[in-house]
């Protein structure tokens, strides 16, 4: 029954686009309010916990902290050659985030006929949620 995620055709499915939340600042953060289109399709708590987790990932990636400064200065000292060998903190977090999204999709969202699209594929501008429909086979 369960298909690999990237084979699910989403072309003609209705979609919900969760917008960025700029109320606290310019960093990447999505609105944690449940969109009206998804009401009844998923529990409010499950949805909100997913969004909070995503927001925490982005906050960690963009945090201005000592390790981020050190990383930047170190790569500057190596004339940015270190970037060929070492993944940046941001990319590591994005990898963790995409495994988290896959896990959430297979555990929570696909059983409820929903599908989260990783925001990086939409330029971190919106979180796309596809409402999967039964397609005739």
């Amino acid at each position, binding site marked *: 029954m369960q298909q690999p995620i990237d084979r699910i055709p989403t072309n003609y499915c209705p979609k919900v686009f969760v917008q960025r939340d700029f109320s606290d600042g310019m960093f990447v953060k999505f609105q944690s309010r449940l969109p009206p289109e998804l009401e009844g399709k998923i529990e409010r708590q499950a949805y909100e916990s997913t969004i909070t987790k995503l927001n925490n990932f982005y906050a960690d*990636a963009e945090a201005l902290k000592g390790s981020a400064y050190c990383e*930047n200065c170190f790569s500057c000292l190596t004339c940015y050659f270190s970037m060929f060998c070492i993944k940046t903190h941001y990319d590591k977090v994005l990898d963790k985030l995409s495994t988290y999204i896959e896990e959430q999709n297979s555990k929570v969202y696909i059983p409820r006929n929903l599908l989260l699209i990783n925001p990086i594929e939409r330029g971190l501008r919106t979180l796309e949620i596809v409402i999967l429909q039964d397609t005739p086979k």
Partner: protein
Amino acid sequence: MANNTGVFILTCSLILITMTLFFAFDGRLLAQRVSPAIPVAAAILFIFVMSTLLRTAFSDPGILPRATVEEAAYNEAYEEQQNHNGQRPPPRTREVFVKVSKEKKDGEQSNFVDAIKKSPASIIEAIICFFSIWSIVGLAGFHTYLIASNQTTNEDIKGSYSNRRGVDNVNPFSEGNVFKNCCAILCGPFTPSLIRRRTYVVPEASRHGSSNGALTENNIITNNRQQNVYGTVESIHIQTDVVIICIIYFYL
């Protein structure tokens, strides 16, 4: 770099030529007569300038992939419904720049007048240096101010965040204080590129075989990491157009 590859090559060759001349003539002399530290310092500065220049040239200025047709339609509907409730910040592209440090070339002559008598051309050099240093100092100062206030040149010139008619206008990009702004811009975390510059551009329309894959204005750019595709997709309008054309041809 985009369309200005020529400017980039010119900048690189200007830096390379002046540095080669410096190391071949001045540097050798200065190392012998004054201190070997001078060419070493020049070499370090040269490497720093080149690495920052190359990093700037090869990094993405912050291009966003275009919204899919569905997203644009959804946002329009949403905005109409909300009646511009959510406050959106102004769009911006972050200006990237390179600080080019200039090497001071002091001769350490014992007598200034003697030196001028020996080579009168040095007066001309001094005048040129005097005027050119001001443009460097001016630009460095201006950009330091921009960094400290976390603005772009465009925002500063337009006065986007200056107070107008007594209304407070706060720069939403500012981190709060001057030091935090400097840290955030100069040593902040590396943000990823949101477009996939190193993958092949595949028109998805042609992959799916829905049409001949010719690109038009109605194609939208997508950025699919899972399938490792950075390409264009035909919008739905085009597909309906194709259908209509097919129907017309069918009736003909």
